[in-house]
Each structure stands twice: as C-alpha cells, then as structure tokens.
C-alpha cells in the first residue's frame, strides 16, 4: 500500500500548483481519491469530522441498485427465451441480458464521466461523485434494445443541458437520469414506446410480443400475468424497473442507511395507492379498474419512487416538503397512467413535474416557519408599544 501511495505521490507532482499539468489536477485527483481518502485535515471549524462523504453516500446508492440491475439482466434473457420457447438456464438468461446491458453501462459512464471531467477541469473544481449513480440509472431505465448511440446522445443531453447548464452537481432542477430518459422518449419515440421494444429482440423476431402490462391495459386487453410475476418482476419493461421485490431490497438499504428519504418513498406509495384506489371506485375503463395494489408493482412506479424521486438535489429538501412531494409524485404517476393511454407509464413525467415544483413546496414549508418568527416579533412590538 505504501508503495502504491509513494508511486501516486510521484505521479502527482506535475499536477501540483505551478507545475505544467496544474489544470488537469481535478482529473488526476479523481483517480487518486478513488484509491485513497486524502490526508486532508481540518483547518477551521470542528476539528473532527464524520466518516461519511459524498463518495460513500453515492456508493450506497450504487449498492442499492445492484439487486435490481442483476435481476434486470436475468429478466432480459428470461423474457427472450421464454417467448422464443428455447430451453435455457439461469446463466443463459443472465448472459443474454448482460451482453446487451453491460455495453450500455459502459457507454453511459464513458460519455457522462467524460463530460464531467471536462467540466471539472474547465471550472477548476473536483469531479463530483453524483454521476456514479446517474450513469448507472440511465441504462437501467431504458428499453433493452435501444441503440448505444442513442444512449450516448441522451446521456450527453442530460449531463450538459440537465446538469452543467444549471451550474453542475447540486444545482440542477431536474433529475439528470430522468432527463436522459425523457430526451430519448421524445426524440426517439419508436425505440422508447409501443409494444415491440420491451423484450429483447422483439422488433426482430416475429414470435415475440413485447407488450407491457400497462400497455395492454391501455389497449383494453386482459392482463395475463399473476401477482407474483408482477411483484418478482418476470414481466416485460425497462431493464431494471420490473422487479418490485429487488427494488424493495434496494429501498430497504436506502432507508436503513438513511441515504434515501423514507418520507419520499413512503409518501410516494401512499399517494399512488390512494389515487389508484379512487380510480378503482370510479372504474370507467380497464386502467381505472386495475386494482390499486397492482398499480404499485407494475411499470416503473416502484423504481421511480425509490431511486429517482429520492434524488436529494431535485427533490424537496424540507421534511414536510418531502412528504408532500412524495405523495404528489405517487398521485400524478397514477393519474398520468390512467388519463394518458398513449403513454401508459406516468412515473417519469410525474417525477419531472414534481422536480419543478419541489422548490415551491419548500418555499411554502419554510414560509410557515418565517411567519411564526414574524408573528412572534409582531407580538413583542405590540406589547412594548
């Protein structure tokens, strides 16, 4: 270890202040601090600091994504093989999925981190770790057969327009991963919707139907999946959104570690359940009468609420605000599903919409505290007058 450290310190020299590669210091530092937590000590303020930092926080989210990702790889193969009727093992299915999904992840990280590094060097700040999560989320919410160049363009759009244009990490209004998906959705609709994109090779092989449950409901057809398949995730859909079970494992990790806001997650499910329940009572069409508890386990709702709505930068920031924000994400997800049969999955647009409103929600929550303070002042001035 000390040998490696020495080597790194030697390599670091040309990047130091006043040396020839000074400008590229953030790029080197990103690699250096990936290997070692730096030897920086406290200069002012509290003399001791908590073990947590942004890298650690982001890694917890990456860990939470892993179960859904692995299941997503398996499910990609499973959907393909079970529809073609070929015999297959778990490994065949997993490899089939991995073969398609790993390149997407590589492209997403390469393009996104590339842009992040350039901006870090250009702006002279350290590379922020947020993209470790965004870069993994983006492939996980795409249809499996989307061409890699579309992934690359969507990523570039999300990072450049969605994040850096607003001032970089911590300043963006919208969730960057959803920006990538929304961009792909509106730019390349034939690759992002319909009934031919949700199962691997569905557009090439005639025997495969790639319809999602929400898609069939919107078309007024019967749903042929049982509850367990919906919950466990053996259904067509975006790569990692299908398994509520494995998303739930991730949610558990996020809630237990406190990294993901349990207020948003719980609020989101409550909002969706309540809205779906109301529609059940109304029951005018197949989507409306789709049982409320099944609304929670099909489509991207669970994935969106657990991993995208909880993005602390684009969500509401106050405790009360998080409740309101979470509940409204759930409400709007189901509302969009039911009212917009052309695009049966509502969670993406619901979260983006609420991202825009999150600052307003916080504003009113904080305003309440300000009012208390002003009222207190008014009572005192009235007394002394």
């Amino acid at each position, binding site marked *: 270890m000390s040998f*490696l450290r020495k080597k790194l310190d030697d390599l670091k020299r040309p990047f130091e202040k006043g040396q020839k590669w000074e400008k590229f210091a953030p790029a080197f530092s990103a690699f250096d601090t990936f290997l070692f*937590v*730096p030897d920086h000590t*406290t200069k002012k303020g509290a*003399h001791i600091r*908590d073990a947590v930092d*942004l890298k650690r926080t982001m890694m917890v989210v990456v860990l939470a994504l892993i179960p859904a990702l692995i299941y997503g790889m398996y499910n990609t193969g499973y959907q393909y093989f079970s529809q073609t009727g070929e015999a297959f093992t778990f490994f065949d299915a997993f490899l089939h999925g991995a073969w398609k999904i790993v390149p997407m992840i590589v492209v997403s990280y390469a393009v996104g981190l590339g842009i992040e590094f350039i901006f870090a060097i250009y702006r002279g700040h350290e590379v922020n770790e947020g993209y470790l999560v965004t870069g993994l989320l983006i492939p996980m919410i795409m249809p499996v057969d989307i061409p890699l160049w579309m992934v690359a363009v969507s990523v570039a759009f999300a990072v450049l327009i969605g994040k850096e244009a607003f001032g970089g990490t911590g300043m963006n209004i919208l969730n960057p991963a959803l920006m990538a998906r929304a961009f792909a959705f509106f730019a390349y609709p034939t690759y992002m919707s319909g009934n031919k994109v949700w199962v691997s090779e569905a557009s090439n092989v005639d025997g495969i139907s790639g319809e999602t449950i929400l898609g069939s409901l919107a078309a007024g057809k019967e749903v042929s999946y049982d509850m367990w398949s919906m919950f466990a995730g053996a259904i067509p859909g975006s790569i990692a959104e299908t398994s509520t079970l494995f998303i739930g494992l991730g949610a558990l990790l996020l809630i237990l570690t406190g*990294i993901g806001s349990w207020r948003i997650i719980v609020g989101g499910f409550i909002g969706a359940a309540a809205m779906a329940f109301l529609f059940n009572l109304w029951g005018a069409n197949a989507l409306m009468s789709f049982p409320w508890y099944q609304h929670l386990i099909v489509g991207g709702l669970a994935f969106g609420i657990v991993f995208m709505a909880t993005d602390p930068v684009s*969500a509401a920031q106050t405790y009360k605000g*998080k409740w309101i924000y979470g509940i409204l994400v759930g409400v709007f997800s189901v509302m969009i599903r039911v009212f917009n049969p052309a695009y049966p999955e509502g969670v993406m647009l619901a979260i983006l919409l609420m991202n825009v409103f999150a600052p307003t929600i916080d504003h009113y929550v904080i305003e309440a505290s300000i009012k208390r303070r002003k009222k207190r002042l008014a009572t005192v001035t009235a007394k002394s007058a």
Partner: protein
Amino acid sequence: MGIYYGNNLIIIKFAGIFELTNFISIDSMSNDIKIRKGLDIKLQGVAEKTVSTAPRSKKFAIKPTDFHGVTPKMVVKEGASVKAGEVIFFSKYSDSVKFVAPVSGTLTEIRRGAKRRILEVIIEADTEDTYVDHGSKDVSQMSGTEVKEHLLAGGCWPFIKQRPYDVIANPEEAPKAIFVSAMSTAPLSADVEFLLKDRMDDFKTGLEAIAKLTSGKTHVCYDAKGSGLFSGINGVALHKVSGPHPAGNVGVQIHHIDPINAGERVWVVGPEDVAIIGSFFRTGKFQADRMVALAGTEAPKNAYYTMRIGTNVHDVVGKISSSVRIISGNVLTGDHIANDGYVGYYANEITMIPEGKEHRMFGWLPFKDNHIPSMSRSSLSWLFPNKRYKVNTNLNGEERALVVTGEMEQVMPMDIFPMQLLKECMAANIEKMENLGIYEVAPEDFALIDYTNTSKIEAQSIIREALDLMIQEVG
C-alpha cells in the same frame, strides 16, 4: 423525527407519518426542555474527576483573538510592570470594556500578526501575585448601574457576551434576559457540576450580581441528569434540560425559553465565569482561576487542573509531538493552539487528539473503516452506540457541492432550516437571513453540522462571517 443517538440508545423513528411538529417539545406545564434532535459524539479520553493544580506558568497571555470583533487599544507598553487586575488594553470601539492582566508581572511582548494585528499580549509572571484591589462589595445593596460599573472597572465585562452575534455585550444596551447554561453536552467537555461544586458561594453571588443587569429574567439551565446542585438557587428561573448535544448550548436553550427577535439582546455568561465574577465581588480582586479538563487520547493525563486564565499550555502538558493537535476548548468549537500556545480566555477544556494526516485506501467504501464514528448509517459504527471512539483530525473526504438534504436538520434542535440559512448566509442576503433566524444562532450551534455534513462545508465559519455582516449592516 429521524435518528436520535443519545442516552445510550438509538431510536429509529418511523412513527408519525405526518410530522406536524418536527421540533422540540417544551413541556408547557413546567420550565423543562427536552431536546430530541442532536448527537452525542462519544470519544475516548474523558477527563477523570480528580483535580491537580497546574504548575504556575512563567508566562501568561491574553489573546485579543478570543474576543471576536474587539480591536484592542493598548494601555500598557512593553516592558512595563502590571498588577493582576490592571487594565492592559481596552476595546477601541467600546472604550468602557477593559481587559485586565490575569497575573502580576512584566508585560514582555505584544505579538503581532499580519497587518500588525495584535495576537497575544504576553506577561512574564511574578512568583506571587499582587492585585489591584477594588474592595469587597455587598451585591444585595448595589443597583444595576453600580454592578455594571464595578464589572467594567474590574475587567470582568468580557465574561458577559451577547446574543445575537456571539460577541462581548455592549454595556450601553439593555438585555431582555440573561442566560447561564450550567451544563455542557459537547464531546469530552468539562462537567459543569464538577467545576462549580466547591465554588457555589461565588456562583450564587455572581448570579445575584448579573441578575441586576437586566429588568427581565435571569435563567439558569442545568442538566436534568445532574445531581441537583443547581436546583435550589433562588432569584432566577431554573430549567432542567435533557437530550443530546447541543442541548447544553445556551443558544438552543434561549431559543426554547425566550427566543430572540430582531432588535432584542440577550446576554449570556459561562457558568464558571459567573463564579469568577462572584469572587470578584466578594474579594475585590480579579482572581481568574479556572478548572480545566485535560481531555483526549493524546493528553499525558486525563484529569482536571486548576489554572489561571492565560496559562501557557506547555507548562501543563509538557513537550508534545507535532503529530498531536492541541485544542483550547472542545473538538467541535475549540481553537487549535501551538504546543507553546496559551489556553483561551473562556476555555474549560484542553483537548488533545492525533492529527490525521494519513491516507486511507478505499476508505470511501460504505461499511468500511468503522473505527471512525459516523452519524450516517453508511458506516456500521451506529451498531455500537456505547462505544467510545479514538478520533483524529482527518477531514474524511473532500469538500463537495451540497447534495444530501435532511442531515443538517437531524442535529439542529431549533425551529430553523439550517441548510437554507447557510445558503442565504453564503449569498449574503440579509433580509432572508433575518427571516430564517440568523439572530437566534451562534457559530457553535452549527458545530455539529460542521462535523456531520457529507459535503464537508465549514458551517461555523459561514455563520460567523454572516453574523459579522449583520453587525456591520444592522448592528
């Protein structure tokens, strides 16, 4: 709601789906305060409750840097001899506030820093002190004005600080209340009951005196878990306070008992400073002796020492390696002092911890390096709530953009939105700072945010700069 560590237990609260009040419950039936948000950081190196007298230093120093915002105007020149209690400098912009020599001796050096700012006024001590005698007084016979003048003349005024702004009180102003927090919840801090148990007469006299400085109430807050040393004091409003740090911060107590509105002043005095004031009234001498807890893993001995204000730390702890940080005060709010530096004016602790100038391989992996305490459950240290940790000064990461939300609120037991306030402070937006409660906070109330925040921002210095801006713009 959220997470509360303290009282040796962890409660993860998922109860209360709709959080209508996420603040603190003040028991409306009594004057007691229960704080629920906060964090007790359990560290190794607690001072044992034994008292030794530190050998008398050869040199003492008064550091104008201990008095935030004071520009010293020297009265005594280098080489002159002074008595204990003799004025050595006063505040240029408030000339009735005088600072006196803690010992008798010769003023040997005025150490200056950049722009000739005075850093230390060093006095070489005589072997025995001769005091300026102000004569003993019967406090009960004195008026508020007399008390004030006596304190100003005797050099005791710097013990009286004001909120808002956390600076020495302006004697021209009238406070609406006076607060004494007779407890400390900061990590490794001195036990206030232990400091005062043999000085209760001084403490009570001091209280009686300062109570005359306000037409409002004088409040004394003490630890609900304590032995009841303070419970029988007359003439003041008593409050039992319980909960994790920062329950002992006087600002938190003021916020829950009599919050500060724009334009109001509250004065605060440290518990031992009250006793020093009391002894000044009883004896007529400025006899500023303190009990100081020597804490932290690197201290040669974890115990209490009695010492005069301005003692040279080298005379107490001996020669210390440069890989040890000596802090005058506690690990959250104290000042880094040199090995031959001087203990701060208000400090009741000297904390010594190792410097953390070392790399940790893959230290950013979650659930790794659990020997470093963490409020976040991305480390496993939360599984051992009773464990005492050995800590160093490593930043454990690098400064980053503000990303994580909700963590600052966990350690801010006030009706204040800490992250929003910090952002407005950085933007120097005075109106919004006022709206968000800048008058109710002091840097020390943000110390736990310094410690816990994921982005490693320096919350205390942001608040300090914002308060200085408020002094300039609003006053």
